[in-house]
């Protein structure tokens, strides 16, 4: 049987030393091919006596199995090596930078974001969103809202006018979104619960005023809405908007032609190191005006003030955004400076929800 041992040694050595697939194939053919050494040995078995054939056959088949196994093992090794070589060739400089996708680089303006936040809060409280045109009539912007013609209260609003038309009617840019409240009252029967966001215009420009700004007004009208309800709505709103558990609010008597009683509202805060915190501190910041809808306004809108009553408020949207997010200068809102919007803007998928928290 020494011939088998020698063959085994030679064949296994040939397999082991095969450097690639083709060398391995040569070794396989030399051993197991039709004319291979092991095949040749198997061919000799028929001439042997049965006893000898059994033992000799078993030995040759064992060798064949051993060689087959060695071939498979070697093939696996070679395959792995070749894959590794390929991977090495395919290596890339993965430190090369790539730009982020638009969902990360795009930006939503703080005004839009805050508008969405406020809408989420009031929609939850059952308010619809009403809108109207920026170019308004004097009647809807002033007269119906109980600003008598020539009254000094009109001067509280520095109004932009358009050139008079052929009939001498002078349209104007709305100075507040209250004409939308009027439109709602004229077109809809109470109960009414709406917020009216939108662009508003006053002829004013300095560090804290821009000729265009945004307001969000609200109107609740039914047969029982009271000033106590108004205070509750505004407190709930402020807590939700500023995302605090408690908020200190101060209601001060004031004057607006379209409400009576009229109130201005301050919110308690602490300012330190360029940061504002709400619900604590010694400072009071004025954030909105509100009141019970004036009976003259109701009458002007065809509603009987003996039957219907309700309240309204108006907030500067830009100012709310500035307060909540610490935006220092109103004028930046309308400048579209990429550095500003990249820094203060919101990502497209940061959609405010009450379930997830307005600001995430």
């Amino acid at each position: 049987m020494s011939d088998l041992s020698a063959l085994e040694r030679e064949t296994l050595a040939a397999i082991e030393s095969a450097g690639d697939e083709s060398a391995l194939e040569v070794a396989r053919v030399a051993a197991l091919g039709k004319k291979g050494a092991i095949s040749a040995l198997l061919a000799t078995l028929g001439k042997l006596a049965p006893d000898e054939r059994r033992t000799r056959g078993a030995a040759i088949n064992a060798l064949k199995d051993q060689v087959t196994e060695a071939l498979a093992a070697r093939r696996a090794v070679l395959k792995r090596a070749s894959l590794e070589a390929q991977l090495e060739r395919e290596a890339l400089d993965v430190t090369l930078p790539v730009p982020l996708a638009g969902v990360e680089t795009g930006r939503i303006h703080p005004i839009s974001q805050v508008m969405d936040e406020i809408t989420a809060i009031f929609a939850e409280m059952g308010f619809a969103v009403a809108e109207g045109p920026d170019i308004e009539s004097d009647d809807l912007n002033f007269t119906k809202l109980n600003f008598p013609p020539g009254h000094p209260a009109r001067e509280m609003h520095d109004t932009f006018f358009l050139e008079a038309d052929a009939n001498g009617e002078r349209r104007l840019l709305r100075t507040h979104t209250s004409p939308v409240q009027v439109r709602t009252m004229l077109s809809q029967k109470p109960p009414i619960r709406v917020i009216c966001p939108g662009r508003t215009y006053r002829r004013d420009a300095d560090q804290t005023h821009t000729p265009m700004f945004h307001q969000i007004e609200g109107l609740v009208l039914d047969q029982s809405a009271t000033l106590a309800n108004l205070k509750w709505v505004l407190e709930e709103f402020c807590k939700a908007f500023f995302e605090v558990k408690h908020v200190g609010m101060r209601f001060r008597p004031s004057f607006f032609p379209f409400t009576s009683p009229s109130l201005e509202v301050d919110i308690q805060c602490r300012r330190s190191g360029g940061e504002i915190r709400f619900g604590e501190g010694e400072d009071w910041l004025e954030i909105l005006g509100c009141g019970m809808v004036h009976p003259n306004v109701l009458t002007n809108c065809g509603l009987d003030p003996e039957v219907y009553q309700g309240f309204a408020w108006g907030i500067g949207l830009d100012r709310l955004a500035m307060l909540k997010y610490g935006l220092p200068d109103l004028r930046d809102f309308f400048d579209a400076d990429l550095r500003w919007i990249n820094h203060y803007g919101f990502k497209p998928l940061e959609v405010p929800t009450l379930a997830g928290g307005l600001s995430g």
Partner: protein
Amino acid sequence: MKFTLSWLKDHLDTTASLAEIVDTLTRVGLEVESVEDPARKYDGFVVASVIEAKPHPNADRLKVCVVDAGQAPVQVVCGAPNARTGLRSVFSPVGTYIPGKKLTLAKGIIRGVESNGMLCSAAELELSEDHDGIIELPDDAPIGVPYAQYAGLDDPVIDVAVTPNRPDAAGVAGIARDLAAAGLGKLKTPQLKPYEGAFDCPTQVRLDFAPDDAHLCPAFALRLVRGVTNGPSPEWMQKRLRAIGLRPISALVDITNYITFDRGRPLHVFDFAKVAGDLAVRRARAGEAVLALDGKTYALDDSVVVIADQNGVESIAGIMGGEHSGCDETTRDVLIESALWDPTNIAHTGRKLGIMTDARYRFERGVDPDFCVPGCDLATEYVLSICGGEFSRMIVAGNPSAPRRSIPFPYGEAKRLLGVDIPRDEGEAILRRLGFGVEEGHVLVPSWRPDVQVKADVVEQILRIAGVDRAPPAPLPRLDGGVPRPVLTLMQKRTRLAKRTLAALSLREAVTWSFVSRVASEAFGGGSPSLALANPIAADLSDMRPSLIPGLVAAAERNTRRGLSDVALFEVGQIFLGSGENDQRIAAASVRRGRAKLDSEGRQWSGGGAVDVFDARRDAMTLLSALEVNTNAVQVIPGGPSFLHPGRSATLQFGPKTVLGWFGQLHPGVCEALDAEGPIVAFEIILDAIPAPKARPSKTRPKLNRSDFMPVERDLAFVVGETVGAADIVKAAESADRGLVARVGVFDVYRGQGLPEGAKSIAIHLTLQPRERTLTEAEIDAAVSKVVAEVSRKTGAALRS
């Protein structure tokens, strides 16, 4: 409206502290804007006596003084030449802030001698420029008393923001009334006695109005005081006027100013010697003018009410007197005017002439008609006591007494509006303290409250005095229980979605002005006179925008000039087609310039490059798709509005009557006109123009139709003329066999070698989707041939061999 604490206390008997008064003012609706407490500035300064002043051992010009400031004697080194034994002066101990030197005094050793404070000059207290020596006080000045108190410099100045409805609060007496009503003390405004007069007023007054104009001057009271001496007004009056920022002029003028602030009652004084004949109150005549007390000449017209004599206009009614008949130190006989004017007319005149005075401020809000005659008497009283003289009987033209307004007021109205019960006794007591008459079922409004017109205004009075905190917040009941329903309209949803979609395309949201320059407006199809502002705030913000692009281009240019040349901005907002009710639209637009492409902003190793018109197209199409528009159905018609590059732009539409918008490269001429560096690519879509989706009764999605058979892919290249659009080839290929052709894409466009001049090769990628069984080679070839034939027929293209 400014006043001092001591002035307030002339009208209010109170023990309340300044802080309580300030808090209460704000609480009742008289918002305190500032409180200036001058005493604070003099914290630490006390009246002291120099017990002994000896020469300084080491310095000729210095003295070592021992000072008695009410406590243990203090040693001070002083350089003042007038420091001497026995002098009473002002002392500031160590730790005092010295306003004139802007430092806090520290203990010091001056030339070897300890100094524990300072004897002060007037300049060091910022009382005058005088720093030649220390302040010299009379020998009876009380030692140890704060100097501010001693010198009467401790009268705090309170500034309240008076809302336009409260003319009564434009006088100290009215403010005191509110405070008294709020329980802060007792009103003690002195009662006036009437002044009868011993002789007739020699000047007559004629209210010279047509009957329709009678409201312009309901009443005019006039009285002569003869033999007056018009010197300076008394120190107490000057001090108060100065404290609120007025310059004392002469006794007669100061008296009118004082009463204006004390009672909210403006007055005017004429120098009788300069008035020619009687006074006529009338509308001015066109062409008349008056030199007013501010030294300016005002041209008048018949909308202005004036007081005139034989010389012409002497005074602009209710706003400002005339220079000619004004009082000065030579005035011997003075005419005192106390009149009533029409608030609307005064406001109009004031605006027209551009004059704001303390008189206008009050008359345009409406002064108390019942105080017209007493106002003249009060002025008489001051004139007699300060300037002397004899007074005439008063002439009263017109009728100053107006009936008091009665408002039906069932007390339950308070609870109806406030949602809380303020006890009736309390509410009615408040009204009475404010001067209202309270009777069963109605209230009588005091003459000084023209703003109280309806029941709600009466409730407001009760609320503000009782305190807004009396109405605790009460939940607003929901209209319908359960989960709130969606509230947004289609356009509101589109607007929100458009913003998020465009931002996800790496665009940054801009909010630009609704007004643009005339040039920009005209360039973008606007510029109609109906959209021009009559009073723009700046020349380049003059016209309501017809498009979002000019604002975005200007924003891009501002960024470029800051060195940020890769700009990708969008805006979703209103544009204006006209000034009419239905002429406003919501548009969405983007601009890109530089290398601000969607996939790669800036210079990148992996490609990038300059933006092109296809970036704009992608923005537009992605937006339309997000808004549920079937983009395959949108017609892309080459060319667009004139502000676009004619060869690099397209109109997006469903047909000529349903134009959604456009995309393209801005015309270089337009960029130049807007002073912006191009090329800039942009799109604009009118969100209102997108047809509303059909309402569907069910949320069930249409059934997915997918084939079990492998799709077959084939690539085909066509040679066509330059004028043929790729879309024509795609459309022709799609229509060749609608049952089988599932998709057609363009994957290559080639021009150059191997192709004739003026021709291009467009390679398309064809997907055939068998539905019922696998296709045979022959069937595939037949389908491909059909596509080739259809493309050739419709576009003249030849299959590239």
